[in-house]
Every structure is written in C-alpha cells, then in structure tokens.
C-alpha cells in the first residue's frame, strides 16, 4: 500500500492507496509544527491498517519553500569566480559577494589560474563579515570543479566547523546565476531541512512504518528522504506538482489535459501533454531569481473563490487579495463563491447572505442578483482563459535547437479541462465550454494532491559529457570528472552514461525502479582543427521514464 501526504499551507492531505483504489483519506489543518500535522494525518489514515503493509510513503512539503519565502535561514557568504563574460553587477546587488580571479572555459580548460594570495583575502572577508556558511561557485565549474574544490578545501582547512557548499554539487547544469542561487539556498536551508528529515524518521519509527520514505520534487519525481538531504532545494514548489500528478492519475492515460486547480485566492494551471506533465523550460523561480530546480510548468492566476469583488463605476473588479471568507460564510465582502451560491452551482454557505452580497454590488446599477452573479463568474472565467491562452503561446515559443524539433512542433490543444480544488465544480464546466474541451471533475478531487504524491515515481537523470580530444568525461549529477579509458564511440558513450545511471540508482536504493532507461539527448560534435577531425564531443542524457505508478479508478466523471 502507498501513502501520499501533501503538507500545504492551510491543509495537510493524506491518502492511502491499494493498487488503483483509494482506501482512506485524511484532511487535517496544517499546524505551525509540521510534524504534528504529519502525525495526525498518518494516524487518521492508518486506523486498523497494520504498519508492515505500507510499502512506500511520499511527502510533499512546503517547508523549504516557506523557509525561503520567509527568509528564515542564516546568512550565507557568497564566493564566486565569474571569469570573462557578464559583469553580474545585478547579482552583486542581491548577495554579499566576493569575486575571485581564476576561470574555466566551456570545455573545462583552465584559462586563468586561481590567485593564491586571494585565498587569504576571501578568508579574512568571511571572518570579518561573520559568515560560517559559505557558497563557492565558479563559472563552468560543472565542466571542471578544481577551482571550487581548491577554494572550499582552503576555507574548510581553516574552519572545519563551517558549512561550505560548492556549485557543482548543488546544481549540475550550465547556468552560473541559477547555480549560484541553488548553492546559496542549499547552504541556507540544509541544516533546518535535516531537523525535518530526522523528525519524519522519528514519526515513522514511532508507528513502526519501515517503508521507504520519499520526498516529492517540483518536477513530479521523487527522491529518497536521505538523498534529499543533499539537495533540499529540490523540494520547493512540489505542491503544484502533486496536484498535477494527481490529475494525471485520475484521468485516462495518454490524454492531453489542462489542470485547473481553483483555490481561495489563486488558480493554478498546468498542462498534461499526452499523459506527461509539461516541464517549465526555465528552472523554478524564487522571487525574481531563477534556480536550477527542474519544475513543472505551472501558471498562477491571482483569482479564486475568496477573491474580493467590488463595483467601480459601472464595472465589477476582482481583486487578488482575500479579506476573509465569502460573504455567504460570514465574510465582509462579496466573492465569486457567493456568485456560485446564487447561481445554484454550489451549496456552500448561506443562500440569503449570498443574495445580499449580489444585491450590494448590483442594486446601484439596477441589476438583478442572478445577472450580477453571472457577470462575476464570467469575469473569473475570462481571467483564467486569458492565462490559458498565454500559457499555450509561451509553450509554443519554447526554443528548438534542431531541425527536427522545429518540424515536429505543432499546435497542441487539450482534450480535457480537469478541475480540482474548492471552486472547481463552479468554474471548470464553463472554462471547458469556452475552450471547446471536455470538463472532468475527477472523484477524490479534494485530495488529488495527496494522490499525486502517492503515485509519483522516483526519477533519475544522468548527463554525461565526454571529450575524446582531451580524453576526459564528466557526469554532471555526480560532480564526477574522470579520464576516458581508450576509444569511445557513440554507442559506448551511451552505455557509459547508462552505467552511471544504474550506479546512481544503486546508491540511492532505487535499483528496483529502473527497468527501462530513456535516452533524452544524444549529441555528437566533431572537434575539427585545420580541417581534420581531432576528437569528438558527446553530450548524452538518460533518465528513468517519467510517469506515475498507478491510475486511480475509471478516470473521472464526465459532466453532462
């Protein structure tokens, strides 16, 4: 049996799945102490179920997201080696940054050596500023991490108790500014995240649950709890991933669906393309900064059931903030929830108060209550539909770097609009009608996010770059740099990459999840000097297939 738990801002949702069936669900209020909510949710689920029957537990947590949002972490000293290129003056405004000389180029060659005299300077700077958490990041460090290692070792030699994080370990892809963000955030949150993982282990042990515990990532994959301690930042924004995977589990396999999650003040939109959730082309964004965290493409519209509605002149305006509950639930201002109540689409709250709310808005214009309610519902739908169109346009504008990618790119439009969340029943049928799609309100929609967590698969990726001219290769995820043993052709390069994936799976105790390895990128470039091919560059990426472990039920109720 699988357990999925989604710790959201207001509610903690949990489900217990057995095969494709939902055995139990629980919904508790999220407490300040996350572990109390976790414990409550688990105890609610497990009534009468022996703990040894649980094979797997997956959490989605907002812990790190909140730590970052609320800046509840220790300051981090940032040491960068930017080399030639952008000046990064904008970056220096955001962080307290020390720049070191020394540079690596795109093929991992040292082009400017580190300046030993600067090591003492950087140490003095860190000490003077009182940092004991340090992030060390070099440009192209994923292609050659020797500078980072040297600087980190030097700092650690003088301060073994300091926490020093290196860029090539915190983010393996090319993108120096995003790697800086990842490293700083990893450095800032790891300690607090460890308290959390320890407490989770305690909670499991106290209930005799011996199943493997996973954490959901923003890209909809899972990580074993222990592995997640290395990369706590990967756990940010896993909430939207949870509900998207939930929808994927609750709709028929292989379909193209738009996921509309209507909450109190925001509506989240996501896309499932032929059964696979769409990934954001850029990494998850924190504030105005991109990270290297791979995330599903989720668009937020600032409107929900509790958004405040006001009349300005002859128009109604929906504000993104919440002033309390809907008027029909005793709140101070009219909301879309009141409009739904008047339209008879929802049964929430007091009908008379809902009418009163519409009257407040409509009376000065001589409009009837139903007329006002319809206008408000239309406004909400307009806002959502505009954003959906924008999302598609953005998706169509995603770059392509190969001829075949441009040729195969065609306009895709969804078959289904799938609604989850509080306001879904009220708005989704009309949004679907506007888009010419089938509306689906799946069963268990209120706990779709917990279902998403429960069925999420562990995902493993390995990116390898080999350079036969220099006889070296690197594995981004592992921060590994090694020598090639003899000749390498395209086939053996792929095999080498796959072997690293298996090694990684073994290390994380995930070997049983790897029965198939997908090649997601396979580029070979000739290195030519004076019209002679002197070597080859291989860029190979492999992964375990994305997807979910199970589909639930028959795939949703189709509305008339």
């Amino acid at each position: 049996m699988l357990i999925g738990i989604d710790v959201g801002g207001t509610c903690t949702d949990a489900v217990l799945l057995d095969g494709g069936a939902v055995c139990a669900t629980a919904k508790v209020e999220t407490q300040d102490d996350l572990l109390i909510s976790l414990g409550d949710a688990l105890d609610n689920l497990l009534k009468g179920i022996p703990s040894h029957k649980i094979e797997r537990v997956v959490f989605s947590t907002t812990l790190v997201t909140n730590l970052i949002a609320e800046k509840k972490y220790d300051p981090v000293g940032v040491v960068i080696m930017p080399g030639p290129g952008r000046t990064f003056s904008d970056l220096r405004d955001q962080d307290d940054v020390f720049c070191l000389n020394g540079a690596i180029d795109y093929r991992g060659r040292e082009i400017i050596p580190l300046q030993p005299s600067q090591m003492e300077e950087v140490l003095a700077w860190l000490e003077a500023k009182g940092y004991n958490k340090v992030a060390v990041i070099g440009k192209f460090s994923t292609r050659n991490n020797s500078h980072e290692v040297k600087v980190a070792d030097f700092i650690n030699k003088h301060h073994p108790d300091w926490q020093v994080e290196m860029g090539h370990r915190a983010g393996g892809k090319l993108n120096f500014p995003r790697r800086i963000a990842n490293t700083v955030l990893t450095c800032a949150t790891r300690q607090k995240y460890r308290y959390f993982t320890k407490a989770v282990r305690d909670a499991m042990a106290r209930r005799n649950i011996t199943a493997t515990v996973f954490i959901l990532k923003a890209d909809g994959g899972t990580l074993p709890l222990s592995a997640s301690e290395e990369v706590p930042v990967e756990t940010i924004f896993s909430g939207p991933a949870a509900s998207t995977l939930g929808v994927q589990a609750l709709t028929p396999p292989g379909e193209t669906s738009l996921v509309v999650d209507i909450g109190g003040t925001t509506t989240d939109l996501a896309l499932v393309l032929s059964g696979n959730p769409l990934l954001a082309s850029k990494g998850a964004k924190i504030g105005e900064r991109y990270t290297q965290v791979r995330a599903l493409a989720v668009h937020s519209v600032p409107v929900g059931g509790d958004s405040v509605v006001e009349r300005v002149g002859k128009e109604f305006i929906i504000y993104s903030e919440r002033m309390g509950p809907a008027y029909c639930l005793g709140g101070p201002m009219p909301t879309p929830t009141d409009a739904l109540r008047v339209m008879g689409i929802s049964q929430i709250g007091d009908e008379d108060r809902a009418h009163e709310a519409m009257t407040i808005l409509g009376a000065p214009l001589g409009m009837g209550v139903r007329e006002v309610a319809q206008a408000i519902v239309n406004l909400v739908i307009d806002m959502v539909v505009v954003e959906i169109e924008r999302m598609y346009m953005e998706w169509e504008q995603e770059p392509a770097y190969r001829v075949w990618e441009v040729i195969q790119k065609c306009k895709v439009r969804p078959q289904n609009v799938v609604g989850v969340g509080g306001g879904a029943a009220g708005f989704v049928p009309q949004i679907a009608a506007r888009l010419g799609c089938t509306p689906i309100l799946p069963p268990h929609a209120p706990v779709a996010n917990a279902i998403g967590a429960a069925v999420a698969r562990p995902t493993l990726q390995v990116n390898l770059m080999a350079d036969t001219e220099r006889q070296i290769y690197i594995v981004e995820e592992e921060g590994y740099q090694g020598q090639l043993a003899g000749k390498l052709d395209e086939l053996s390069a792929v095999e080498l990459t796959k072997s690293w994936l298996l090694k990684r799976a073994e290390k994380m105790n995930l070997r049983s999840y790897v029965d198939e390895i997908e090649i997601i990128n396979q580029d070979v470039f000739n290195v030519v000097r004076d019209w002679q091919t002197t070597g080859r560059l291989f860029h190979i990426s492999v992964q375990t297939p994305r997807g979910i472990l199970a589909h639930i039920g028959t795939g949703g109720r189709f509305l008339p």
Partner: protein
Amino acid sequence: MSKKTGVIFFPAFDWAISPTHPEREERLLYTRDQMFEEGILDLPEIQQYAPRMASKHDIARVHFCVPNVEEQVLDAHRIAAGAAIDLGDRVMAGEIANGFALVRPPGHHAMRVVHGNRGFCNINNEAVLVEYLRKTYGVKKIAIVDTDVHHGDGTQDIFYHDPDVLFISFHQDGRTIYPGTGFTYELGGPGAYASTINIPLPPGVTDSGLHYVMDHLILPILKDFQPDFVVNSAGQDNHFTDPLGRMKITAQGYARLTEKLKPNLAVLEGGYAIETALPYVNLAILLALAGKDYTSVVEPEYNPAKFKESPKVTSEIGRVVEELQEIWAKRHQFDKYTLAKGTGFYQRTKPIFYDTHYIEEKQIEKVRVCDQCSGFISLDSQAYHPNGKHYRICAISIPFQSCKSCQAEAWESYEQAKGDPHFDYIYLQDKSTDTFMIYQRLGNREIRSDG
C-alpha cells in the same frame, strides 16, 4: 521596463554541409555553452523565441532557385530565414526593441539566382527578411550593414538596382580573400547609384581602425540615408582568431560597433573561430543589443600589447574612407541615363562561381532604365549542376514600387520568353503584386504562387 531584445538561437545541431566543413554542427556549440552558462537568456532584458520556417513563397519573393525552391532549399535554410522573419515581425509590432537571429546556416553569399551553395549559403536570410518587411509592412527605406570579413556579394547582387535598400559592406580586401569582390567602384546600378557602398580594408585592421570607419563613414552615411529599418549582417570572422580572415577585431570591438549601429535586427553570418571567437563575440553583441554591460567579455587570448595597428594599415583605411566620403558627397551629381551610357537598358555580364559545388554560372543581367521607377530586371542564366544537368533560365523581376509600364513590359517579356526554346525555365517575380510564376518548358507546365 523598456522593450526587450529578442533572440532566436538556432544552432541547427543536426545539420551540416559535410563533417569537417567550417560551417558545421559544432559551430554554435560553444556559443550555446557560454550563453547558457552566463544565464543570459534569463535576463529580463532578453526574450528568447522559437524559430519558425520561412515559406517557399517568402523565398521565391527574393530568389530564383533553379530549377525550384524545393531542389535548393532545405528545412535548415528555411528555419534560419524564418527566424529572421519572426524577429522582424516582432520588431515591427513593437513587441521587442531589437533582435538577434543567432542562426546557421548563413546567407549573405546567396545571390538572386541560386544554382547551388555559394560560400556556405543557399538563401540570403537578410534579403528574405527585407522583402518580407517591405511586402508586409510597406517599410520604405532599409539599410543593411554587412560586418562580415567576406564581401556580402549575394546581398549586393540582390539589391544592386534598388535605391531604397542601402547596402554597406566592410570586409577584407577582395584581392586577399573570398569571394574576390567588393571594391569601392561597385556602387549599384544606374538607378541606384551609391546605394551600394563597399569598404575594402587591408588585412590587419584593429578595433581602432574599424571604429574610424564607423565614425567617419558608415554612421554619417546612415545619418544621410535615414533608414526606417537597419539590418546588421553580423559576420564575426573579422575576429583576430578567425581561421579564414586576417583581421584583428575583438569582442569589445564588435560590441561597440553594435552599440553605435543600433540595428533593429542582427542576423548571424560567418565566423569560424568557433571556440576562440564566437562564444565571446556573440555574447558581447547580445549584451550590447540589450543595453547591458559587456566590458568584461574579454577573450582569454586577448593581449592588448599585440593589438597595435600598423601605420600602413591605418593610412590605407584613411585613404579608403576618404575616397568613399567623396563618392557619397557627390552621389547626386550623376543622372541614371548618363550612368547607363545613354541607353534604355543597362546590361552587365556576370560569371559567378559556386565554391562549394564547383558550379560556374554565366549570367547576363539587364535592367530597364526608367524615369518612374527603378526598372524591371531580366536575367539570362546558365550553369551545369553537379548532377550533370545543364539549365538555362530566364528570370524577370519587377521591383516593389514599379511603374505600370515596367510591370506591363515585364509580363510581356515573360510571355515572350515562354516562346523561346533556349530557356528550360522562365520565372517571373512581381514584387509589386507579390506574385511568382514558373514556366517549365518540359511538359509545358506553369505554376503560380501568390503571397
């Protein structure tokens, strides 16, 4: 925030002429690595877009592909040209302030008639863009500034008789480098005198020499011409590490040039120092377009001590600039009939060599000297293709703003050529109505395409 710089990055990682050819898959690989690592596409000042394909009609509006567009143009070419068009649309819509089509394959050696690949080019990306902009938005005056080390002979050929397109090319002197053209006396046809400006420069020009040319010649000419749209044919083989050119320009030199030129659109052309130049030059140009600080983009090989320009080079630059300043100042003193030696038709014979496919084309170009417009053009071109087939074609081009009588006469010529058994194919390109005709003698077939 002010408007963004649009970028279409299309490295065509799955297309090459041949495995060790300088124009190959690897060409933009290190540019990609440098751009991605700098996080430049995350900058709020820069917006990346997906490429799209130019239509066959977009290409036929410019080129006479022999025997047809399908035979000469691959998907990769259509995407490169399509990227330029897409960014052009966005500039015209006011969505972006300027743009950079960082694409391959390049295009500035592709001429009006296309029998094959010339200098790594099949179709001319800038010309396809320019004709598209004129047809779609009625843009009147366009300037193309070609900053490649090689003479932009294809672009020159296409706009040689067009007074509304100012073509300025600086390049390494044609006596020392492919394609061997681009001298100061190539100034455009009689109806478009001095709308072609060639600035041949001696090998060894440094940033200071280049900026002398910019400040004293190119910028003043542009100021006089007052273009509505400026395209930079942005070749980067003037770089001091380029294996094909012998110039000494740096990334900083290119960036400052971009800053001064303020092109609406830059389209990548050559540049074959794929490791030592392109990652840095492309980055610097992109930063300059976006108004960002580019001063730290310095090539690892750069050593300021080695970058003194020889006095001989400097004085030669001064001489060329002076010569062209004078030509430009006196450009209005010539009348088109005098330039055409008093005849109603201006005619020139052009031997054209296609270095990639070893094709030798013989071409006779005739332009009507007209009071009302720039005059229609007719071409008689023949060549053996690599498949052994011989093609002789007649091609007629009616300018964008042609007069009624030129238009009528051109259509009449087309009908007449259809009766001439010497020609295997007869083409008509009516830019004034955006119509394209092909007549194939074999099987007596005629195809019409409207925009």
